[in-house]
């Protein structure tokens, strides 16, 4: 299995008035060709910032990718590329789909103009050639009457159709990697399912890798191959989807799974993880989850936990496995 993108020790910090905010703090992960990797976590856990770091779109000058970080793509470290070089990769080899289809398209230009733009800048196609390709992609994402839609403005399309346009735009240069940042969050449930199946179809057609950012574990279970769980800027657990749902190791993952509503369970109130995400500027000394963790012991508050490999590709960032091993 070949790796499309490898992230090593990525640290994206933000300068604030009160100090450095480690939004992404030492993340390592691999994205494989033809696989969907889910990045799960609550708001502010650093998921989107990880995506923005990959594309070099961190808001500057407050955001900084710290030295020692590495994002390897086709033999190049994206963190060291100049603006002009990374612009050639954006939308071409790595494309992105955003959360807000309603506002992600420019209201004053037609769908056609926006859709053909990546082809015009990356592949230098003429207007006519680009139009042909664009219409074929509008068909691929199953937009009815693509010839007519090509000349429509975004406000003439519904949210679901606009997200289809966004997907077509992401696919249009046949990228190696698509980053989907909560692509279905703003859509209603029936449209959500259509968009997800569309995305999976696209992924099979092009054999791209997808980094799927979401906080919806139901979606994760349905589509992804591998799952990374993020908490307070760090990946706390990483495993293939089956293992993660069957044998979660980290107490945070367990909490997330427990707080899912289940159809086969008759509960009146959903489980919730107590407490709040710690302030990233004034982090606790030990594990970042310790203050909310039901299984925390003294060492969790004192020392940063080790990264333990449980099996094959199941990694957990917690003291628990080691404690269990010494108890036995």
């Amino acid at each position: 299995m070949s790796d499309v993108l490898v992230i090593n020790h990525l640290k994206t910090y933000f300068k604030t008035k009160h100090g450095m905010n480690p939004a992404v703090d030492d993340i390592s992960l691999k994205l494989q060709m033809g696989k969907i990797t889910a990045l799960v976590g609550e708001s502010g856990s650093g998921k989107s910032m990880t995506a923005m770091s990959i594309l070099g779109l961190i808001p500057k000058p407050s955001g900084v990718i710290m030295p020692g970080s590495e994002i390897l793509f086709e033999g190049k470290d994206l963190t060291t590329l100049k603006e002009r070089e990374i612009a050639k990769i954006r939308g071409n080899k790595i494309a992105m789909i955003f959360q807000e289809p309603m506002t992600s398209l420019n209201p004053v230009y037609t769908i056609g103009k926006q859709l053909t733009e990546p082809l015009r800048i990356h592949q230098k196609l003429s207007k006519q050639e680009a139009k042909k390709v664009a219409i074929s992609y509008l068909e691929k994402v199953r937009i009815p009457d693509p010839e007519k839609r090509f000349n429509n403005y975004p406000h003439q399309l519904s949210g679901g159709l606009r997200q289809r346009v966004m997907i077509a735009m992401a696919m249009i240069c046949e990228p190696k990697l698509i980053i989907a940042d909560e692509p279905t969050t703003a859509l209603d449930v029936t449209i959500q399912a259509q968009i997800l199946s569309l995305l999976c179809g696209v992924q099979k057609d092009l054999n791209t890798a997808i980094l799927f950012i979401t906080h919806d574990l139901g979606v994760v279970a349905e589509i992804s191959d591998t799952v990374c769980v993020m908490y307070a800027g760090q990946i706390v657990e990483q495993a293939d989807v089956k293992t993660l749902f069957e044998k979660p190791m980290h107490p945070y993952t367990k909490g997330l799974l427990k707080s899912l509503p289940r159809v086969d369970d008759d509960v009146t109130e959903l489980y919730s993880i107590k407490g709040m995400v710690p302030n990233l500027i004034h982090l606790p000394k030990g594990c970042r989850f310790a203050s909310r963790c039901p299984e925390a012991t003294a060492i969790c508050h004192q020392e940063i936990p080790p990264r333990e490999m449980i099996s094959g590709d199941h990694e957990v960032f917690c003291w628990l496995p080691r404690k269990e091993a010494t108890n036995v």
Partner: protein
Amino acid sequence: MRYILKRLLTTIPIIIGVSFLLYVMLNIVPGDPVALMMGEHINPDTIERVRARMNLDDPLMIRFVKYLLDALHGDFGYSYKLKREVSTLIWQAFPNTLILAVSGALVSWIIGIPAGIISAVKKNTWIDYAVMTFALIGVSMPVFWAGLLGQYFFGLKLQWLPISGFDGLNIKYIIMPAVVLGWSAAATIARLTRSSLLEVMSSDYIRTAREKGLLRHQVVVGHALKNAFLPVITVMTIQVASLLSGAVITETIFGIPGIGRIAVSAIQTRDMPLLQGSVMFATVLIILGNLLADILYGFIDPRIKYH
């Protein structure tokens, strides 16, 4: 087209309403126009006769309707002081105001738009601060003061330009009033362009454009400017309309025989028909300016036509 026609029709009641208010206000001002016209030592009988001839004894409403009907035929009455048709006086002054307004507007666009874009793109750098300081001075400095400074330095000290006067399209006479007039307008445009562009630059579709692989300057030119111009265009058209209706202070300082000067002298001499005519003229221009802004909006933003 239907949209434009509809907007055009809605201006009619506005014009009638505004002209009515204007007519009433000017008529409740104390002082008898006939006495003013005739001078002090006049026979009361003569005053009565002239009042009757001018229909001044009719009720206000009737006089207003007559005035409006005459105005529709291009007859805005007769100036008692200058002894000429009001419409003739306005049409004679208008070309001068037009020259001044167009050149002032050009100055304001040529300076204001690029300045706003540059300071937005270079946000929080010394360039931004320098441009915005100039803009702040431009907005806060009264036109008469800027005019006097210009006359002192460029007219009196350096003797580059004539201090005042007007000579048709002779550029020497136009430069200084145009810059004085354009500078404060430029300052407004620059500030608005900057804030509008900054707001647009933080929107989701700009992020999409960046993610497609466009470089920052390509995004500004290709995706942001068209959106950012919407509010700027409104202000620009209204500015032009108000410039066209007479830059009262600038025309007075530089001695330009335009609409503004007419209005000022009409006030000074209590020349009611002339004052009314020139203010009506300004009103119609401002309303048409707003209409033009709305139409331009429709061209730039495809969403407008459908509402």
